[in-house]
């Protein structure tokens, strides 16, 4: 499914992307390929939607305000409500999960007041039971993880 260079890029650069004027060239040198190969491979991975982006993962708690929200949605309305939720720019990572609380999403805003306003709008518009579960402490944060390749 993925060629060797694609795998190497994902194995090596989920973190630690070179912060230099020529990051692709630095990566190319480390992997023993050309700068153009690195760049075109990243472009291809993004076009094919294997990756969302190459760049920063912000600590939302420092970058603004964010929280994890769950809604208990009647199954037959899940798709409709998910579409509604997706319309908010403040929403990312919107997943259906197996539970009575079956729609889970992250809301991120520039400050607490904006965040609360999005939550109020969603709660009011859906009228469904909602859990607001802000992070209290991070024991282990997203640093990418080792992928187990298989043919």
């Amino acid at each position: 499914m993925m060629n060797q260079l694609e795998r190497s890029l994902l194995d090596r650069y989920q973190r630690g992307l070179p912060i230099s004027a020529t990051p692709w060239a630095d990566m190319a040198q480390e992997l023993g390929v050309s700068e153009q190969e690195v760049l075109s491979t990243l472009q291809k991975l993004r076009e094919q939607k294997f990756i969302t982006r190459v760049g920063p993962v912000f600590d939302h708690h420092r970058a603004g305000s964010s929280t994890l929200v769950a809604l208990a949605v009647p199954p037959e309305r899940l798709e409709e409500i998910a579409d509604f939720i997706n319309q908010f720019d403040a929403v990312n990572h919107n997943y259906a999960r197996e539970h009575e609380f079956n729609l889970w999403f992250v809301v991120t805003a520039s400050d607490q007041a904006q965040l609360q306003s999005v939550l109020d709008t969603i709660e009011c518009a859906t009228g469904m039971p909602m859990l607001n579960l802000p992070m209290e402490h991070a024991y282990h944060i997203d640093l990418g993880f080792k992928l187990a390749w298989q043919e």
Partner: protein
Amino acid sequence: MTLTVQQQETLRAAIQDGLPLTARPYATLAQQIQASENDVIGQIQHWLDDGLIKRMGIVVRHHAIGYSANAMVVWNVPDELVDFVAEKMRVFPSVTLCYRRPRRLPDWPYNLFCMIHGRDRHWVLQQIEQLVQHAELQSIPRAVLFSQRQFKQTGGRYARVG
């Protein structure tokens, strides 16, 4: 740091969807915010050192590359034990995230969350069993919430473009 507050905000908004995949991405960004390439690099390095940026790298779509089983495992850990339990949990290799969040009684008794990604459900369930053994969690009530569908996966948008 020589970027103005306005330039910093514009830069943050510009990179939340990733670096431009141009030959000199930081020069491209510098042009957008009318700063020098060096200042942009310095600012991003500063955010990274400072912890505002957790990591700089490739953000993988796990579903797309075959990691279709993703379980959020939630635990109801007595408050006085939660730090202790979390420390054991976070070092378990397949745990990719571990957060404490508030309970919302009576609907939601769980205060510790971890995430396990895998290629299939069976493997993930095995990992959870091993985690229970490893961290001695047999008596801790838990729920396993596999993801069924992914409706949206983007970077957080705390900053507006423009």
